[in-house]
Every structure is written in structure tokens, then in C-alpha cells.
């Protein structure tokens, strides 16, 4: 098992005829993901170079292909509508790669999808990969390796950096999940921890946090109260100045809360070792397993 995606994932790429959507659809096909279709309004009926059929809308795409998952590569201002449409069509998991969505859009997206039983990852997520089974997102597939460590992160490339060190050191991953760098996201650190807690194939979890918000502190609390998996953590932004947004819309220290220090302290209190550099994670995990 893995979390969220596996060999049963039947994927629709929303925005498949766009530059990013097209490129990553091919990459996912190449990785072995079961890409069953794509959607671009007005382009229904064509096929991509990889032979993936394109539909005009999600309802049609789901009816024709039996898809259960979608990934979104449309421009920010159309992304909320793409999520609504996917959820309305019965998609169970929507991975929103699109970034730059207004927070207000997510405020209406979330109750809507919850009512319909759809889980959203992101927005501004690099995606999800269950190595050797399925990849739904933009991460380079070849740095991953099948294994028993779950990775959940608020970041994209920082995750690649850490996963790369894991793989190089022979530590494979069950699933790597980028939850996205926005302040309001469909699946947060704690939701992801829940998923890993219930996955028999995950023995340890790497939490990659950063400044802003208090989810890491809450995660530490959960671990302290008894979390069934081993945990190692990394927190980015120790040197970030307060009041400044560090790239991610959610990465900001305001009024002295959301600092790296607080998060690191919370993890230390919970007995979780926090790496000082990305490379150290591999060593910590080796020690835990």
C-alpha cells in the first residue's frame, strides 16, 4: 500500500493541452501513471501525442474513463473552477499543481469538496508520488525509490533535495506528498500524518515544514500524544526575517508566531529529531528504522 495513489489510480489531466499540462502528462505516462484522459474545454475529441484522449469537460471524461483522480495545470484564475468541476464529476482526489489561487477561492472550494467527498491536495503542490506505482505531479520521478518512508512537505524542490539524499542512501519511499505552500490548502500536514498513520507500508515519516502557521506545532503535539510511526523533521526558514513572505504565500512569520524556532522547539519537546541541513535527514531516518 501507499497513500492517496497507487496502481488503481486512473488519472485525468485538467489543462492537458497547455504547456505545463502537456509536458507533465507525458512525463507521468512515461513514469507509468495510468493517465486515462485529459480535459480542455473546446478541445474534446483530440488525442495527445501519447494517445491520451481529450474531453471537453470532466463529467464526460469521468463517464468515459472511470477516472478517480485528477491533476490540475490550468492558470490560477481558472483553477478553482477546475476543482469544483472535478469534485462535481465525482473525482475522489484532486491534486492542484496550479499556484497563485486567491485564498478566497479556496474558502469556497473546501466546503464544496468536503460535502462531495473529494480530497484536494494543494493548491501550489508539486504533487504526489508513490514510487514505482504512480506519479501525479511535477516531481522528477527518477530520484525516488520504492520503500517504507513517507514524506510530507510544504515545499517542492526542498523535498526533491531531501528525497534525493534518502534514495542515495538506500532509503525508499512509500509516498511523497507535497501539500503546497499556500496558507489555505485542502490537505494539511496533520491530514497527511493521519493518512500515513493508517498505511501499513509506511514505517517512518519525514515532515518537511517551514515558517508560517502552526501546523508543525500541532503535529508535534500529535506525536507527543502517541503517533504510530517514527518521525524525522526539517524546518526551513530559520533565517527568515519576520513580516516578510518567503516565496510561498503561507511562509510568513507574523507577530512572532510561526517561527522556525517555535516549530523546532515543539518537535524537540516531542522527541522528534530535527535535521539542521537537508542531507542530515537520511542519517536520522537510518537511525530510526
Amino acid at each position, binding site marked *: 500500500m501507499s497513500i492517496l495513489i497507487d496502481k488503481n489510480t486512473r488519472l485525468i489531466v485538467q489543462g492537458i493541452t497547455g504547456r505545463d499540462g502537456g509536458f507533465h502528462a507525458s512525463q507521468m505516462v512515461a513514469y507509468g501513471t495510468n493517465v486515462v484522459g485529459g480535459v480542455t474545454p473546446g478541445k474534446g475529441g483530440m488525442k495527445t501525442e501519447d494517445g491520451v484522449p481529450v474531453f471537453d469537460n470532466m463529467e464526460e471524461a469521468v463517464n468515459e474513463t472511470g477516472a478517480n483522480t485528477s491533476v490540475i495545470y490550468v492558470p490560477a484564475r481558472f483553477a478553482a473552477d477546475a476543482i469544483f468541476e472535478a469534485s462535481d464529476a465525482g473525482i475522489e482526489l484532486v491534486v492542484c499543481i496550479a499556484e497563485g489561487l*486567491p485564498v478566497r477561492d479556496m474558502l469556497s472550494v473546501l466546503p464544496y469538496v468536503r460535502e462531495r467527498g473529494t480530497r484536494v491536495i494543494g493548491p501550489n503542490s508539486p504533487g504526489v508520488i508513490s514510487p514505482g506505482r504512480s506519479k501525479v505531479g511535477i516531481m522528477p520521478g527518477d530520484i525516488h525509490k520504492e520503500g517504507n518512508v513517507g514524506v510530507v512537505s510544504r515545499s517542492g524542490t526542498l523535498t526533491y533535495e531531501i528525497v534525493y539524499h534518502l534514495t542515495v542512501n538506500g532509503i525508499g519511499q512509500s509516498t511523497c506528498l507535497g501539500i503546497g505552500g499556500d496558507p489555505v490548502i485542502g490537505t494539511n500536514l496533520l491530514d497527511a500524518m493521519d493518512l500515513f498513520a493508517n498505511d501499513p507500508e509506511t514505517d517512518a515519516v519525514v515532515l518537511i515544514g517551514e515558517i508560517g502557521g502552526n501546523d508543525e506545532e500541532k503535529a508535534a503535539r500529535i506525536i507527543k500524544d502517541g503517533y504510530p510511526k517514527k518521525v524525522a523533521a526539517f524546518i*526551513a526558514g530559520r533565517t527568515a526575517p519576520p513580516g516578510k513572505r518567503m516565496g510561498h504565500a503561507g511562509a510568513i512569520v507574523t507577530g512572532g508566531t510561526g517561527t522556525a524556532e517555535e516549530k523546532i522547539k515543539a518537535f524537540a519537546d516531542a522527541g522528534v529529531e530535527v535535521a539542521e541541513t537537508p542531507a542530515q535527514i537520511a542519517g536520522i531516518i537510518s537511525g530510526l528504522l
Partner: protein
Amino acid sequence: MKIHEGDARGIFAAFGLPVPPSRFITKAEEAGPVAEELGCPVVVKAQVLVGGRGKAGGVKLASDPIEAVEKAKAILGMDIKGLTVEKVLIAKAVDISKEFYVGMVVDRITRKPLMMISAEGGIDIEEVAKSAPEKILKVVIDPITGLLPFQTRKMASFLTSDKDVARQLGPVFRSLYQAFMEIDSSLAEINPLVVSPDGKVWAIDAKINIDDNSLYRHEDIRALRDDSMEDAGEVEAREADLSFVKLDGSIGCIVNGAGLAMATMDMIKYYGAEPANFLDIGGSSSPEKVLSAMKIILRDKNVKAILVNIFGGITRCDDVAKGLLEAKKRLGIDIPLVVRLTGTNEEEARELLRGTELVSADTMDEGVKKAIEIANA
């Protein structure tokens, strides 16, 4: 995006909040006629996008037009936390018998709008939230329904037992919520909301931050941006679609991805030096973006070495290499460049950079160490 108090007051007034009239001026002598028009006393308020202007002497009361001009003269041109006061707001003054705090943010936990109120006005809400949380009432608002009558009743009675005041508070809460939502605000504060001796409620200060991602649908608000309130590098970065934050160290950084960019800064510090900036060139980066990034970093005369740290995914390493070569050629860079490129099209990139004087590194650790070494040399 932050906007000036005067503009925030305008938005609040448009949503029906009780805001005393005010005018922007940029020359001290304009203060006279404006004070005359509004009626004295007036408050003269520095318009700078930073907190603590009151303590810095940027807010003064004037009892007549002549005094208004004097006070405006004193405040215009003042330096407040590194920002020069170029605009001043003249606002009709209100006598205060009671002060409240009323503010709104989006709560990251419930993922819903959150209104916070306190019966003490003029406070730093985040500080009070830590030191005396019982002084703050937080009310989560469901965007399905908006602010509900039972919530406004509860909030009003948290602030006052005076029924006349309470009656005015309901519309204040509702208007603030409506404004917050409709303009895609990420922070909206009335601090303080005051009661005057005659029992009337007034919003005498206003602060609004706007969600940058929403600006495409708020042309009018985008026009309120005041570039003079930001670091020139940050303004330039925004125009080039880069995320940049100026810092005080000597190692310039060019990184793809916000998390990796922070981790790079942190590692520079970990190995004993200081980063000169945060800079994320973003996802699908073109050579042009690398060029813009380089230009922005070169503005900073403290920079002794530049570290380029790329983990290719969407970002193609060869694109970055091309940008670096272009920058070398066009900008005549004399600061040493340490380059670490891993991931998509890494081989092609290495090929492109072979034979240049760029210092290459295989890992992030190595890159950071080399950059520090060079900067300290």
C-alpha cells in the same frame, strides 16, 4: 500587498463603516485648507507602510489649520524605520471615551475567515493573543452564511454592555466582514474602533492587506500600490515575477523553489556566514528570469559571492545555465559565482558551463561551503 491607511479608510467608508473624513496631502501647506474643510481639531498622520509610526512621532493632533500645517511640516520627510514619509493624511479628529480592537484574518486551522475583537483598542493583537488571550474573542465566520446574528450579538456583548453602542457594532462587524471578503483581504483591522463621548462609534484607524494572488480581479486596488514603500530590488523582482527578500549578509542566493531557497539561507548561516537575500526564481524558469535575478542581486554592494542552487524538476538546468552565461556576458559580473545544478537536463547544463570560470559544486553542502570560502577570501 499593503495599502496606505488613507486608502484603507476610503475602502472601509465605501462599505459603510463609520470613518471620519480625511484627505491625503503631500505638501505641508495643503494641510491648512484641508483642516479648514474637515473642521478642527484634525489628526496629522504619516502614511508609511510599517507599524509603530505613532511611537516614532508620525501621528500628531492639531487644533487649528495653522497647527495642522506645522505638524504636517514636521512629519513630511521624516524617516520611520527606514521609510521616508512622502504623504500625510489629515483626518477629522474624534474625541475618545472608549477604544476597541476589531480585526479580520483567514484562519489557517479552520480554513475560514476569523474575526478578532478586544475591548482594548490600539493594541498589538498578536502580542495580546499570546500574553492575555482571554482579552480577545475570536469568532470563526462561515463563508457559506457570512457573519450570523448570534455571532454579532455575542461579539457586541463581549465589548460593551451599553445597548446604544452595541446597536452600532452589529453593522460595523458586518461591514468589516463584507469588505474583507469582497476585496480579497488577507488582513483588515480597525485599531482602534472608538466610542466618542456622545456615544457614537468611529473607525479612526484602518489597515488592509490584500491577497496578492487576487489582484487580477481588483484593478482599482492594485492601483493603490505605493512602490516607494518597498526596497527597489523587491519592486524589480515583483515586476520580473520573482520572489525576493533583501537581507544583510554577503552571500547572494539564486534558488528554485521557496523551501529550498529558505533552506539554502539557513545552511549559509549554519556554516557560519550570512545570506544577502532570499530569491526564488520559481517553477518553469526561463534564462530571462535568471538574468533578472542576477541584476537584482548585483544592486547589493554587500554581496561577495553568489550561490546558484537549483534542483531541476520543472526548472531545466540547461535553461538556468544559459541564463547564467547570458548574465555573465551582459552584466560583466565580477563577483564569483558558485553553481550547483542537479536534476532535469543536468548533463546539458554541465556541458554549457564547462570551461567558464564559474565554480561548480555537486551538492548543496559543497556549494554553500565554497561560496562562504570565496566570500571570506
